[in-house]
């Protein structure tokens, strides 16, 4: 047991570095992906046909193709088109695409949950389309979407583990590297699992508590 703790303590700094990269890549992807999701959700409902078409394709490909394939596409595929990116930038593009596609559906559900009368009332008091969206519709729609968006953010932290496949030095890559040099895969993978669990389990519990609390007032 002491041996295990020593092993963990010895490699903890490298693992925490990896965790930091995981959190960074998740954070940047969400910061780009959620606004993208909002734009896609609005574009899918737009009156212009080409815009709707493009938005639907972006959403359906982002949701339909596995995140791993999106990552490999941006990292190994885009250089063929003359666009070479480092693994962090590729990871952010792929995960932001994935985030945009999924969150657009979450936000669309939120937009649909706003009663139609709200939109009519905004029109009746003379707000233009943009102001109606900004002051009336979005504040209500986003409030409905918050629990689902937070739940999705937890999933994205887990999805960032796929960046292992494109050699981003995140948590799983670090664990694998340490495992392959020390031949002690089991303990280091357990530590990786514990680190993910230490973030995701409290976050999951907090999100479901929030959901219950918001649900109680609905």
């Amino acid at each position, binding site marked *: 047991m002491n041996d295990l703790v020593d092993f963990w303590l010895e490699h903890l700094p490298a693992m925490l570095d990896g965790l930091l990269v995981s959190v960074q890549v998740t954070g940047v992807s969400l910061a780009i992906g959620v606004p993208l999701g909002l734009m896609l959700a609005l574009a899918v409902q737009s009156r212009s046909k080409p815009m709707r078409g493009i938005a639907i394709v972006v959403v359906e*490909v982002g949701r339909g193709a*596995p995140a791993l394939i999106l990552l490999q596409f941006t990292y190994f595929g885009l250089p063929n088109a003359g666009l070479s990116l480092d693994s962090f930038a590729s990871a952010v593009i792929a995960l932001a695409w994935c985030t945009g596609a999924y969150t657009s559906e979450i936000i669309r559900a939120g937009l649909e949950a706003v009663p139609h009368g709200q939109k009519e009332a905004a029109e009746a008091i003379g707000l233009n389309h943009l102001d109606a969206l900004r002051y009336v519709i979005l504040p209500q729609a986003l409030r409905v979407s918050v629990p689902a968006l937070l739940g999705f953010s937890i999933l994205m932290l887990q999805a960032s583990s796929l960046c292992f496949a494109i050699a981003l030095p995140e948590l799983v890559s670090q664990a694998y590297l340490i495992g392959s040099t020390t031949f002690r895969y089991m303990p280091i993978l357990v530590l990786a*699992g514990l680190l993910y*669990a230490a973030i*995701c389990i409290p976050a999951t519990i907090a999100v479901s508590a929030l959901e219950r609390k918001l649900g109680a007032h609905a």
Partner: protein
Amino acid sequence: MTQDMLLTMVSGVPWTIALTAVALLIGVVLGIPLCAMRMSKLVVLRMVANTLILTLRAIPPIVWLFFIFFGLDTGFVSLNPFQAAAIGLGLITAANMAEIYRGAMSAIHSGQSEASMALGLSTYHRFFDVLGPQLFRVALPSAASYAIGLLKDSAIASTIGVHEIAFQASHVSQRTFRGLDVYAVAGLLYILLSLPIAWASRWADLHLRARVAR
């Protein structure tokens, strides 16, 4: 994109389907006792189930697969990549199915359970003749969308060497130094595979809904 490259990638399709099907089967079956434990009257059972579900869902699939494939391999058990992937994804599916069953349970009116108890039906008949069929119908749409998600998650098995679509795609792209079209085709294959599941689920849902007056 030559025919040879395309054929290599398509040769991954049966593996993807097999892996998804086996993992789904494990999850659908193991999800039942897990859900029963989660809803049990005994606090200990409930806590065990809750911890299992939270842990299985909180740790990324790739860590589970590595843990089962590399971690458990050191001593007494030796699994091939397909077995390791099927067990790992199957366990994760079980946790998610347990939550889907629980959600479906709460959607069934409590009067159904009370009525079958009032009629003096045994626990077995209460579950298999009254609650079960309704549960199946309610749980089907979420189970189908989970199955589509699982199909995409099965791409992760390529990292431990299961010869499915993502594995063949990276194999082909390494051999030919072409990534753009290879991964685009791989993504398209996954999208094409998920379409029949979505259609079947929608059809079954309409069909089952039509048989029950609501």
